[in-house]
């Protein structure tokens, strides 16, 4: 969908040697320079903490609380330095000639204002048109531009009455309303499912090319970059380490960090093996083991063909809202099943039912032939040991006041048969399994990076040697390189311990990297299930086919 307009490259914004520091004087942007050109899109790529959002906001002359500008300029097409302007001068440009599309529209739209009013506000503040009528017309026009209905009833909707994709379109409409010269987009499709993401990316691309807007697209997702950007700048720890045409950077990366990032991106085809990455950010443990070149997960050596976990006609509804409409699947010993679905498909609910965290379901969950009680409280300790759960966010699933050792030890206390010494030995063994050094036993979650915390959470699930590990979106809060190392870890663990795994995710690209079987969940039903390759190559359901066409690839 990329169109390269080589001619008439008119500079709209030029950032030169941008330096930003915290209030305490610690510099976090070390001289960042980039150029935005009309009708072209520059992608600013980096992992969390690389300073990409800070750099993007600096283009609007905006610095978050606790940050200050210490050097460099942001020049506009007429040569004025945006950062030398007064507050009022910057305010006049923001939302007018330079606009911003936020990362999470659900948080960035005012929940107490109608969407029409929020877009109108931009037009009013900057004095668009001669009359209120002219502004009304522009409002209707810009809603059409982003592919939303523009009737009065729609304009009077509240943000919560829109879907995530529609909310993001409103965010884009708001940024585009005043016909800006420059648009800064901060991960505008993170959190959207692939189908919606494809539509939003298409809208952005159209706006930028047909209206000759200069775009800055901030993201951590390299697959998306290849879809939208003309140029790429890769950021690492407050510096741009590589910059160039996007096809060059993505297919012939020069800097080692860019190569590492690219290697960490899971691809749907499973061409390369993610996870063989060394530490790229901070103090992440190095994961590099000898491994076959292909990412294809070997078919497990199933000793007994009998199923270990069996789910039959699982149904659950909240009031009149049915979340699960009858789910059936079997999971063999040592097998890894991916439960794939978009937000709202019921994938997490299903996972929680299996683990007994939701006890209001009907239908049955049986483990090794025994039907389990619905809630964890009714299940025996032995049954609870055998199914362990890893949560999405390691930030909230570990008690911040407990050391890692204490947290990992909790399941052992519950079984109550081990001495202090035995518990410590088991904890150390579990930490070793997840490749955390023994010294982590006395640290607290606050001292750990996101990837290390998720490892600790996995260690807690492993300490009782479960038969089934349920992983609920365990990598979606992590950067790609960390995600790759966690995926590698889970793959290794599955082979070493022979446990079965249910991996819940919305990221279809991970499928070939992790699971032997794939189940596609849509509106509380499994619409496609089978060996991963079969489902991906020969999808049976129209929904799976639609999903596959929208996956962005490098």
């Amino acid at each position, binding site marked *: 969908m990329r169109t390269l307009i080589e001619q008439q490259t008119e500079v709209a914004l030029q950032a030169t040697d941008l330096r930003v520091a915290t209030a305490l004087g610690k510099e976090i942007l070390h001289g960042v320079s980039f150029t935005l050109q009309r009708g072209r899109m520059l992608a600013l790529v980096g992992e969390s903490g690389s300073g990409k959002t800070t750099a993007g906001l600096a283009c609007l002359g905006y610095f978050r609380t606790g940050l200050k500008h210490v050097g460099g300029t942001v020049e506009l097409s007429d040569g004025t330095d945006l950062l030398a302007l007064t507050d009022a001068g910057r*305010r006049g440009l923001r939302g007018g000639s330079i606009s911003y599309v936020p990362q999470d529209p659900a948080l960035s739209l005012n929940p107490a204002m109608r969407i029409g009013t929020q877009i109108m506000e931009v037009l009013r503040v900057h004095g668009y048109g001669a009359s209120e009528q002219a502004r009304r017309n522009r409002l209707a026009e810009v809603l059409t531009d982003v592919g939303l209905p523009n009737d009065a009833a729609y304009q009077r909707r509240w943000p919560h009455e829109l879907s995530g994709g529609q909310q993001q379109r409103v965010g884009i409409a*708001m940024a585009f309303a005043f016909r800006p010269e420059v648009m800064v987009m901060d991960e505008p499709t993170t959190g959207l499912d692939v189908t919606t993401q494809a539509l939003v990316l298409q809208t952005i691309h159209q706006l930028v090319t047909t209206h000759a807007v200069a775009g800055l697209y901030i993201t951590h997702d390299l697959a998306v970059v290849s879809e939208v950007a003309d140029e790429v700048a890769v950021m690492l720890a407050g510096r741009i380490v590589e910059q160039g045409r996007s096809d060059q950077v993505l297919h012939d990366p020069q800097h080692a960090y860019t190569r590492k990032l690219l290697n960490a991106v899971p691809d749907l085809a499973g061409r390369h093996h993610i996870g063989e990455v060394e530490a790229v950010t901070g103090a992440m443990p190095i994961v590099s083991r000898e491994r076959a070149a292909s990412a294809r997960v070997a078919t497990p050596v199933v000793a007994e063909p009998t199923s270990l976990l069996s789910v039959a006609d699982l149904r659950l509804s909240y009031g009149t809202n049915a979340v699960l409409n009858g789910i059936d699947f079997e999971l063999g010993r040592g097998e890894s099943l991916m439960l794939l679905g978009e937000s709202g498909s019921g994938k997490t609910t299903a996972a929680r039912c299996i683990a007994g965290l939701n006890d209001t379901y009907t239908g049955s969950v049986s483990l090794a032939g025994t039907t389990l009680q619905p809630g964890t409280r009714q299940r025996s300790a032995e049954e609870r040991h055998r199914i362990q759960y890893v949560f999405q966010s390691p930030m909230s699933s570990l008690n911040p006041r407990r050391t890692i050792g204490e947290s990992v030890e909790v399941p052992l206390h519950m079984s109550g048969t081990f001495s202090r010494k035995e518990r410590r030995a088991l904890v150390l063994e579990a930490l070793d399994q997840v490749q955390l050094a023994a010294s982590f036993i006395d640290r607290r979650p606050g001292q750990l990076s996101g990837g290390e915390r998720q490892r600790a959470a996995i260690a807690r699930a492993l300490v009782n040697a479960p038969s089934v590990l349920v992983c609920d979106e365990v990598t979606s809060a992590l950067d790609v390189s960390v995600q790759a190392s966690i995926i590698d870890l889970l793959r290794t663990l599955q082979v070493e311990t022979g446990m079965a795994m249910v991996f819940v995710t919305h990221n279809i690209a991970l499928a070939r990297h992790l699971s032997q079987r794939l189940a596609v969940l849509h509106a509380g039903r499994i619409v496609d299930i089978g060996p991963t390759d079969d489902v991906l190559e020969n999808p049976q359901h129209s929904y799976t086919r639609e999903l596959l066409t929208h996956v962005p690839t490098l």
Partner: protein
Amino acid sequence: MLGLILRRLSISAVILLIVSMLVFVATLLLPGDPAQAILGQQATPERLEALREQMNLNDPFAQRYLHWLGGLFVGDFGVSAASGGSVAALLGDRIAASLVLMALAAAISIPVGILVGTYSALRRGRAGDHAATGISLVLAALPDFVIGIALVTLFSTTVFTVLPSVTMAPPGEQVWDYPSQLILPVLTLVLVVMPYIIRMMRTTMIEVLDSGYVEMARLKGVPERQVIVRHALPHAIAPVAQVVAIQLAWLAGGIVVVEFLFRYPGVGQALVDAVTNRDVQVVQALAMLIAAVYVVVNLLADIVGIVTNPKLRTGGIR
């Protein structure tokens, strides 16, 4: 939205009904005989019996309760045991005087509290914020009578003698005919109520100012004033309304101490007198009145919450 408000209203009605039962039962359990209290120790048994008959004291409890409850609806609160006059006539002026005091205190403390709280949040960590939070913390820690006494010392007795420390209205005239007498009682109530409003307002405002939609409003180029008034304030108000409700409800009861301190002829004084005189009918009426104030202000706070949250209005949350 109307449905939600009607539901809250009916819940309030049920609460008041339950309160009325509790108040009635509680006053029945009080020692003493109202007829004896009215007629005094020298009353003959015949006269006592006649009065009991007249006051329906010989009827079954349930019937007396229903009779009393029916009276409440038409404004008939019964007959005062102490004075023999109608309770409604006895309390009418008192209620008006207290309401004036409460309304003035609320009219000053709510807007000033919201303003100071917002100012404090905007200047977070700077001198103005430290001063505002420090002073409000000290005031919140002081009991109401201490503040009242300090004010009296400062403005009417020891330091300056510019304001009257007691309320004295000649019979037949109203308290508000002498505005200078109202200053100290109102000021005391304001200083007691306002710190909580300031602190709550500051906390919620800081949270709202850090939100994505406030940042977005700034990035849209909306002038700072408009960001605060249109984007931030409506979200900060709802939790503050709950605190204001609790404070106003507290005023209904807490006013007793302040009225006593300034000899202010309001319901607080009336309640103290009624309890001393075993004036059951007056105690019942005042207890119901204070309960009604609690219920009404909480209802108002809920309505503010509903109005400022479109999700509640449009049924996004059930």
